């Protein structure tokens, strides 16, 4: 389903890339390349690419199509692209298909969802060492220890099976300057938020004076409870026990003091301070962003991935500085030095078999390299968040909403989640019911204990 199949005309090319072009975003697919004779290094090689990240965002989708086309033109290889949804890797599809033998050559995913597929993955250490140019390698070097750390429970943790291409620090804060001003607050002094006391104080001011009933939101729905701002708060209290699992993946951390205090604060925002809507047990960051756009919320935590929507639906305020990003902040008194978990969008190569295995694996890595080219990294950053290459960070700062500055500032000391084969179960499925009960008034310590017991039982099997 690549977009450039069949005979090409210049008009087709322009039409297909208009949305990106309209925003002044260029990719490695230049018109010259499109109409040049395709190269032949990898002629006859066909690879399957399962594309998941960003395919619901039309800009990222066009970027992905451009990257694939550029790769095909440069190498002569052919790529079959399949679009998948998050549910496919969270749910049974990838696992079952892989197990049965239906596997792509290369796919993208989030760093902490691939542990379940690790036996199928081909380590990329040699490629990174020998096939990556010095500049790109230097730009990505800092992510490699993080990837190794999140796979620490595997015997082959040194093997890099997931190569980051984009970053999602969780979770920055989005604020509306107009609401601050309506409440009589000096935006330059009160933003960014310093810690949770400050957060509560500012929200209460806005609630009282700017008449915003629920100026912020904590999220209870299954996919967002343990996936947005909660874990950063826990981490601000104690780095050691902030991940879902302990250092050697033998037990849950959820009964630690940091977890109990962190979740208690999360619940308090809703129950005690009444700053989060009654929808909290089922609320999501997507919904909060839409309420934010409509002026019904003032301060919300959300991934930079939402930036595309914001630009589409409130271009004016994004460009005149009314809407600004700020970094996540610690729980008051939390002195660990970090209040961020970093999710990474990564590429994985699937181990190939047969006579052309080496060739296919190399082709897969060449496609990844295409994604890592400066123009594509920057194009990604401008449409959906942060690119992974550190050396390109200076190129993504300077937007009026300051997403680049804020996002990159959050990376220092950020933690990564474990990539245990059952991480999806631990992070969402088992946690959410207990989290929701706590939000509805059950004892935080009891619910976390029950959750930890379920995780510990699962770890033993």
């Amino acid at each position, binding site marked *: 389903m690549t977009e450039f199949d069949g005979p090409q005309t210049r008009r087709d090319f322009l039409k297909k890339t208009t949305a990106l072009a309209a925003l002044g975003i260029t990719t490695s697919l230049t018109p010259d390349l499109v109409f040049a004779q395709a190269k032949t290094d990898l002629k006859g090689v066909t690879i399957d690419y399962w594309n998941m990240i960003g395919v619901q965002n039309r800009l990222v989708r066009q970027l992905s199509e451009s990257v694939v086309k550029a790769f095909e033109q440069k190498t002569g290889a052919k790529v079959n692209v399949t679009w998948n949804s998050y549910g496919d890797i969270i749910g049974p599809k990838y696992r079952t298909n892989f197990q049965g033998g239906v596997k792509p050559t290369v796919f993208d995913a989030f760093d902490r969802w691939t542990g379940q597929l690790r036996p199928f993955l081909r380590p990329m250490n040699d490629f990174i060492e020998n096939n990556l140019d010095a500049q790109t390698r230097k730009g990505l070097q800092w992510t490699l220890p993080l990837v190794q750390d999140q796979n620490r429970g595997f015997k082959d943790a040194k093997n890099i099976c997931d190569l980051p291409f984009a970053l999602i620090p969780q979770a920055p804060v989005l604020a509306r300057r107009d609401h601050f001003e309506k409440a009589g607050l000096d935006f330059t002094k009160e933003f960014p938020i310093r810690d949770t006391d400050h957060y509560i104080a500012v929200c209460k001011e806005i609630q009282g004076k700017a008449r915003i009933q629920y100026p912020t939101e904590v999220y209870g729905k*299954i996919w967002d409870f343990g996936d947005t701002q909660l874990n950063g708060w826990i981490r601000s209290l104690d780095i050691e026990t902030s991940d879902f699992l302990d250092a050697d993946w033998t037990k849950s951390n959820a009964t630690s003091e940091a977890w109990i205090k962190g979740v208690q604060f999360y619940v308090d925002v809703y129950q005690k301070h009444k700053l989060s809507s009654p929808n909290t047990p089922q609320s999501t960051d997507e919904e909060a962003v839409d309420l934010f756009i409509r002026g019904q919320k003032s301060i919300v935590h959300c991934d930079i991935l939402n930036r595309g929507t914001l630009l589409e639906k409130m271009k004016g305020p994004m460009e005149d500085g009314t809407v600004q990003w700020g970094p996540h902040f610690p729980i008051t008194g939390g002195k660990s030095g970090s209040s961020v978990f970093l999710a990474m969008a990564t590429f994985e190569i699937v181990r190939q078999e047969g006579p052309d295995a080496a060739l296919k694996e190399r082709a897969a890595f060449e496609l990844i390299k295409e994604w890592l080219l400066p123009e594509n990294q920057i194009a990604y950053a401008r449409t959906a968040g942060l690119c992974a290459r550190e050396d390109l960070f200076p190129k993504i700062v300077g937007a009026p909403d300051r997403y680049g500055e804020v996002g990159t500032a959050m990376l220092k000391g950020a933690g990564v989640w474990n990539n245990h084969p059952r991480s999806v179960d631990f992070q969402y499925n088992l946690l959410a019911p207990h989290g929701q009960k706590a939000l509805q008034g059950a004892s935080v310590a009891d619910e976390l204990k029950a959750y930890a017991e379920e995780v510990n039982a699962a770890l033993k099997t």
Partner: protein
Amino acid sequence: MKRSEERWLIILFLAPTTLFMLLLLWAPFLQGMWMSLHRWPFMGEPVWLGLRNYTDFLGAAYFWDAIEATLIYSLSTLFQLAVALVAALALRQPFVRFKALWRGIMIISYAMPPVVVGAIWLFLLDPGLGMITHYLMAFGIIEQPIYWFAENTWAKWMITLVASWTFWPFMFLIILSALQAIPQSRYELAEIYGANLWQRFVVVTLPAIRNAILVVVILRLAFNLAKIEQPFTLTGGGPGYETSVLSILMYRFAFMSGDFGMAFTVGMFLVVMTAALILPFAWLFQRQVGRA
């Protein structure tokens, strides 16, 4: 000669059905029963547990939540029947015009993929953004938004109602067909004997569609209890375990925890519960058919 020919026909004609049934339904189901007696991880070695999965599930804190949610969810069949009856009776009336058009429109919700229907209702019912809350408040029907999916009392009923909205046309299709087969002359005859509207319904309509109603109730009970799309998109089984109907638990055990032993254990409870709910209707149906 004739006997053996008949025997061959029976064997030949039963073969596809039998083959299909054994290979695609009974074999995996029996294997599933076997799996429910094990700890059976997705990619790993099974371990014999005996009835441990069953006792674990019976003893789980959420067991009764799940049963209650499933029972309420099963009422979806009743709502579907009510709407389908009203629609079918209305479209049976001689004075209603453009029938073909209305009939077509009626089945729209069933023609759309259920996953998408769930997402659309989530959009329409959103307490802050959805148009339903907006109009309920604009018309002064409610003062504060209702948090349909976050409040325990509402959530169970909402997944039931949205499932009803999605699947009722199946009942409509069959009940309307049965109604259309009633000759107009029977109504005229009843009228000559002085039967009023209600009496005509009881004497002419109801007996003629009783079978169709039993058939759809049985079919929909079986289908509805297995449906996961609505609870999955609307609530994900929460808050807590409030909307964790058995089929959702089954899905979560199998596909999120990768625990097929437990998933099939829940599946067995679902089978038993569905059978128990269907049994009275199946009995009525048998009696009805036997009498005919």
